[in-house]
């Protein structure tokens, strides 16, 4: 009995030291055409670009992308993603990539009309914030580029968040299970009703896939909104 208690007294402090939590932060890798078009003027060119986020949501620069056109007689495209309008009509541009980590083939497409003028896709995402915990968090959002080129994240009138969870922060990220490479917008200070966040111009509207509500002290996600 004495030995047991003495061992317990000695072991308790040893148990109370910083150890390691393993976090499964795998996500499906994604590729996005970051400058899609609705329409390309016949005879003109457009250099398509992509954003690639790997299996932990980390952006990989200069990915090895393969470009294809569904109809090269209407829209021709080079291996570098430079498209040229050849004839009036419609064609789909596809960017594809084989991931280095898992050898998965991922793609993203853009339906382009070759016409008399060039029109970029309107940039606006709408969706819903949902709770991923037992804490109240819900509401609609709009992510769009303003006329002054500032990207604004707007939360709707139906937005509501629990005030019982201190240390609640909002992020933009590409991994719903980690904020390691996420952009921290800031602490949540509005818990009900419409409000908005203007994002810095260094951020592109295609840079992030998720809006994340994160409890910093607990290092755990409270809610999310999927952007794309």
């Amino acid at each position, binding site marked *: 009995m004495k030995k047991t208690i003495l061992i*317990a007294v000695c072991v308790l402090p040893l148990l109370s030291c910083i150890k390691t939590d393993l976090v499964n932060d795998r996500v499906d890798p994604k590729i996005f055409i970051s400058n899609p078009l609705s329409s390309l003027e016949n005879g003109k060119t457009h250099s398509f670009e992509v954003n690639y986020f790997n299996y932990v949501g980390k952006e990989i620069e200069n990915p090895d992308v393969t470009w294809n056109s569904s109809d090269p007689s209407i829209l021709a495209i080079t291996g570098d993603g430079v498209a040229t309008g050849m004839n009036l009509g419609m064609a789909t541009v596809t960017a594809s990539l084989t991931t280095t980590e898992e050898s998965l083939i991922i793609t993203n497409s853009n339906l382009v009309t070759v016409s008399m003028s060039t029109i970029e896709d309107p940039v606006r995402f709408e969706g819903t914030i949902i709770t991923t915990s037992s804490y109240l968090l819900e509401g609609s959002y709009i992510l769009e580029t303003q006329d002054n080129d500032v990207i604004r994240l707007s939360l709707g009138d139906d937005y509501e968040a629990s005030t019982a969870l*201190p240390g609640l922060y909002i992020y933009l990220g590409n991994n719903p299970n980690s904020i390691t490479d996420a952009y921290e917008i800031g602490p949540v200070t509005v818990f009900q009703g419409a409000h908005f966040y203007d994002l810095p111009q260094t951020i592109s509207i295609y840079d992030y896939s998720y809006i994340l509500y994160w409890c910093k002290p607990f290092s755990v996600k409270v809610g999310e909104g999927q952007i794309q």
Partner: protein
Amino acid sequence: MKNTIILSLLLVFTCQFFTHAQWLEKKGNGYLKLSAWALEANQHYTNSGAIDPNATRGTFSLSLYGKYGLSKNWDVIAYIPFYVKTYQNHQVSLVTNETLAEGEENTSFGDMNIGVEYRLFKKSKHAFSTTLTLGIPSGDSNGGSDGSYQTGDGEFNQELRFNAGTSFKISKHSFYAKGYLGFNNRTEGFSDEVKFGFEVGSSLLKKRLLLLLRSNTVKSQKNGSLNAANSSGNIFANNVEFVSVGGEVSWKFTKKIGLSLAYNSAISGKVIYAAPSYSAGIFYLLK
């Protein structure tokens, strides 16, 4: 704001023992206990009572608990957590093995309690007393990089308890039972609390071994103004509630010195870790 204070029964602290129905010390007698206490949790009860996950956090404390009989009717009580550590584990990717977030810890003095206990009356096997405890904000209420590695709540609280105890026999074997009801008046925007609990125990092996079971309940009055919107990072800032159950085994290996092991766990709660706590201690009976 109206607060209803319900009178009650019950017991003082988790550290008392060998007291049976009479828990006040005789004049000049005392009880001293050096304890290590630990809790580690990777989940917590939310404000709705559900259980949610969290990064593993822990608290470890070393404390002194003492009780001394000033007179036949008055005891003085002190709880001094002289070493309190709160910490969080490293967060490491299972996929890449990269560190996602570094662990962190904060160590400091904790919040002390000092108090007095007064014997209301004792008759036969029954005893009643009242305890006034003052919670001294001697800990760190804003520790760590984000203020959440707290070792104290930063507020001065006053708790009044009414205690009752009795002894009885079952099949010629002696048992004791205690109960308490208390009201904790909290400041700095914290909600007041009603506390109650009970304890049943028995001595064995010529009173060298004590086995006891206990339960404690804390109910928030939800009359405080502190919440996430106006506090800065305090995890368990306000409106903590729980029902806990536990047990303790104590062994007196001399007439004055003994060791104890205790286990407690919240079986329901709000805004509190959902994990058991363990403690071990050595006590000294001053006679």
